[in-house]
């Protein structure tokens, strides 16, 4: 059988790739294992875009104040977030989101001074800003609708351990709690990004990493 010319063209169009040292990849696997479970205390400010959580009320607490009355346990990684927000889902379930800023280069290198500058700027802004009043929830709902349209077979839900997480499920499987969590997450993210952009922070260099975790559901 004559090979399909189109198949040859398609195969030949693949972009070139570059191999990585297998030893480096193995070390990544090990490092990722440590990151995967939030246990390690990190020093300094990390900016990370938070996962989404939806709650009916939002309280902003600058300076890393833990909220939710200790109902939610955070691993050491998030012990010193520069900000934390608590909120309540439609079901009454309490959740909290914490953000940390991560500069490229991790904890080493000259970027840490810049990271701390960004942190101080964000802390000062959060302490003087009524976030609950300024969040654009309508825009966030539109963002979620756009995401659903672009990723019809994947969505974000509150997982069995309380963390907001990506799952290969239809958006229609989300609960009201899941959806509200995601909307608030998107709203918070947009607000933080808008502020960082206004401050001239290069979002290709800095990222915000956040955890959204909800208290256990009573059996």
């Amino acid at each position: 059988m004559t090979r399909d010319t189109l198949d040859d063209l398609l195969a030949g169009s693949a972009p070139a790739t570059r191999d990585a040292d297998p030893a480096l990849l193995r070390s990544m696997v090990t490092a990722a294992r440590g990151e995967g479970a939030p246990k390690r205390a990190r020093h300094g400010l990390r900016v990370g875009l938070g996962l989404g959580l939806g709650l009916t009320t939002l309280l902003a607490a600058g300076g890393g104040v833990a909220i939710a009355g200790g109902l939610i346990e955070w691993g050491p990684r998030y012990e010193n977030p520069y900000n934390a927000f608590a909120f309540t889902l439609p079901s009454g379930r309490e959740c909290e989101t914490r953000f940390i800023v991560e500069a490229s280069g991790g904890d080493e290198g000259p970027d840490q001074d810049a990271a701390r500058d960004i942190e101080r700027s964000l802390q000062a802004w959060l302490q003087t800003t009524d976030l609950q009043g300024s969040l654009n929830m309508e825009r966030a709902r539109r963002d979620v609708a756009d995401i659903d349209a672009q990723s019809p077979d994947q969505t974000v839900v509150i997982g069995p351990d309380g963390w907001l997480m990506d799952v290969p499920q239809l958006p229609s499987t989300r609960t009201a709690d899941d959806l509200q969590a995601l909307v608030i997450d998107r709203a918070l993210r947009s607000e933080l990004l808008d502020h960082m952009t206004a401050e001239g922070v290069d979002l290709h260099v800095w990222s915000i990493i956040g955890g959204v975790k909800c208290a256990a559901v009573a059996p």
Partner: protein
Amino acid sequence: MSRAADARLTATLTAASSDLLSYLQRRVGTDDAPDLLGETMVVAWRRVAELPIEPERARMWLFGIARGTLLNHARGERRRWALADRVRGHVGTDAAAPPADAGAEVRDAIARLDPELAEVVRLVHWDGFALAEAAEVLGLPPSTARGRYARAKEELRVALGVGASTGG
């Protein structure tokens, strides 16, 4: 997390990481790919309880997670992972680098397809997946993947002026 699951995920990630990196490089380039690989690995560890037991299913599960990181990337989310520094800037040169414009016309034609059709073509022809495997990565029924693939090739034939194969 059980030790057995820990060992299985370590083995699966180690075996698949090079292919995962290539998969990501083909879509976002060599600069961003290490961070998406790092994110894929971290998400996999967070979801280790869901790791399929059968090795080939586990491998496809990882590619599904990697695809999720690509979707986040496409939405404009950017995360830099310190663990990706191990690889970022330390990848080798192109194994057999084609001329810069080689395949450009075909890549453009693929990019002009509906995104859902384009990804099936990429998974099959760039990443070497069988159509059934591509369906699994995309979370589609095999019949849906077959239909999208057929439509994609039809549109590409027209766009590129390539006739159907003949012979027997």
